[in-house]
């Protein structure tokens, strides 16, 4: 952009400071309060990790954390495989129809609540018993869309002549994929997988509707939602901080592997 006067530069910097304050103060307050010994939001009574300790003693939370991990890992593995193949399929296609683009794009924009009730109706009309497995099946839907979007972005700048060279040298299609294509796109595949993992760990509405009755398939966001309804507690602050650390770590890794996953 054009040269700026000192006054307009000060203005722009103030805008940035205000917006970052708005974005980060609520989160920072939460994190700070999770270390407040007294647990009250109104008075700082010393640093303590006891609320984190309390989480470890809470069997419901531990079960929910385990469930979340199971759902996230399995749905990420399936989505990464299917999403990567999908991306390769689309990008090697001569003509991409609008219908195909719309179908692949839809899971990212369809309102969660609509997909959630659609899946709930589908499973219950089929009399398909619901539990962790139905959450996994459902999470793959949006996860594979995100993985394929990340991998497709990488394939847009992919030099297909290297795969032609490999084929000319006598490699089978599978060998070419395993030895040439996959190593080259691997950072994007892992970045996509990390993104899918985070999305799955954080996803609430679809899990809530497809978990079925009973507490055994409660995931962490479902647990957090139930806890929030009873009000502000120091345990939620601690749990929220831990969940955010997981998301932020996975996403920062994802971003490092592949510029453009979160922001260009």
């Amino acid at each position, binding site marked *: *952009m054009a040269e700026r006067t000192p006054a307009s530069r000060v203005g722009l910097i103030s805008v940035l400071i205000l917006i970052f304050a*708005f974005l980060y103060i609520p989160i920072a307050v939460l994190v700070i309060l999770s270390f407040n010994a007294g647990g009250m939001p109104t008075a700082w009574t010393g640093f303590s990790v006891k609320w984190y300790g309390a989480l470890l003693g809470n069997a419901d939370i531990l079960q929910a954390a385990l469930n979340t991990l199971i759902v996230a890992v399995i749905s990420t593995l399936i989505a990464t495989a299917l999403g990567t193949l999908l991306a390769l399929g689309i990008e090697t296609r001569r003509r991409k129809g609008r219908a195909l683009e719309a179908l692949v794009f839809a899971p990212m924009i369809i309102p969660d609540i609509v997909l959630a009730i659609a899946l709930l109706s589908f499973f219950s009309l089929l009399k398909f018993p619901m539990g962790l497995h139905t959450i996994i099946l459902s999470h793959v839907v949006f996860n594979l869309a995100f993985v394929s979007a990340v991998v497709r972005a990488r394939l847009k700048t992919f030099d297909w002549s290297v795969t032609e060279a490999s084929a000319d040298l006598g490699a089978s299609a599978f060998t070419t994929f395993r030895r040439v294509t996959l190593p080259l796109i691997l950072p994007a595949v892992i970045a996509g997988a990390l993104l899918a993992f985070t999305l799955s760990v954080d996803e609430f509405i679809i899990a809530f509707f497809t978990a079925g009755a009973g507490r055994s398939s409660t995931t962490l966001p479902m647990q957090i939602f139930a806890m929030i309804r009873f009000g502000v507690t120091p345990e939620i602050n601690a749990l929220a901080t831990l969940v955010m650390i997981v998301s932020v770590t996975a996403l920062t890794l994802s971003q490092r592997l592949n510029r453009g996953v979160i*922001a260009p």
Partner: protein
Amino acid sequence: MTPSNARSTLLMAPALAWLTALMVVPCGLILALGFFRRGTYGGIEYTFTLENFGLLLDPLYAGIFLTSARIAGTATLIAVVIGYAAAYAIAAAPRHRQPILLFFAVLPFWSNYLIRTYAWIVLLNREGLITHGLRMLGYEGEPPSMLYTEGAVITGLVYNYLPFVILACYAPLSRLNPELAEASRDLGASAFTTFRRVILPMTVPGIAAGAVFVFVLSIGNFITPALLGGGRFQMIGNLVYAQFLTANDWPFGAALSMALIAIMMGLLTLQTFAAEKGAGEAREAADG
């Protein structure tokens, strides 16, 4: 891997099968459900009817649509104004700092939605931090009611979706050719005129994308009204939730979701239109 449609189809098949079985078919099912009658004891009676769609026009439900549209519209307007300002400031920063600024602007968007909403409960509740801050400044009256208001719902929506608006507006702003703005100024246009006639039209596609996204996600939102509105502000998302989990009127819930999808598709079409128009004007500006 040379382009070959047969192989490409084979590669896409598993994912497309998954999407068909677990997205297209369930959504089609919802579409069909909207045309059936609710059974006497909940459940579904398989006789064709249009009354679920008629019910959407009932003043009670039409009112909820209007409330949702008002809340979503206000949130969209605020998010676009703040988000555009942020994107503009980031695009104006030195080139090498832009990626990191953008990364931190968007990072909150990828952390847990529930947690980001909960953070506002911590700030806004009657014994929360804001009340406490006011007391420290000498305020002695009743704690102000901030949580469970329309303002709280709007704040939550703006907070949650702002990063996306920043991202959407940044893309066209960062591609803006600085020479165009310079040329405009050299020709005697004021800074405001340059912004209104040159910069703004060229960034319309980004604004439209951001606005549609915020509006669509806000109008169908269920978490924010439930947590920050305390159930006092029924929005379409909560209404859909209630039809499926408490009222047990699935056909009406299905009709409501279809209305949501219709709103979404309508807005996306408008957005495509705005993007094309914006691109046309940008070309004009560049040529003229």
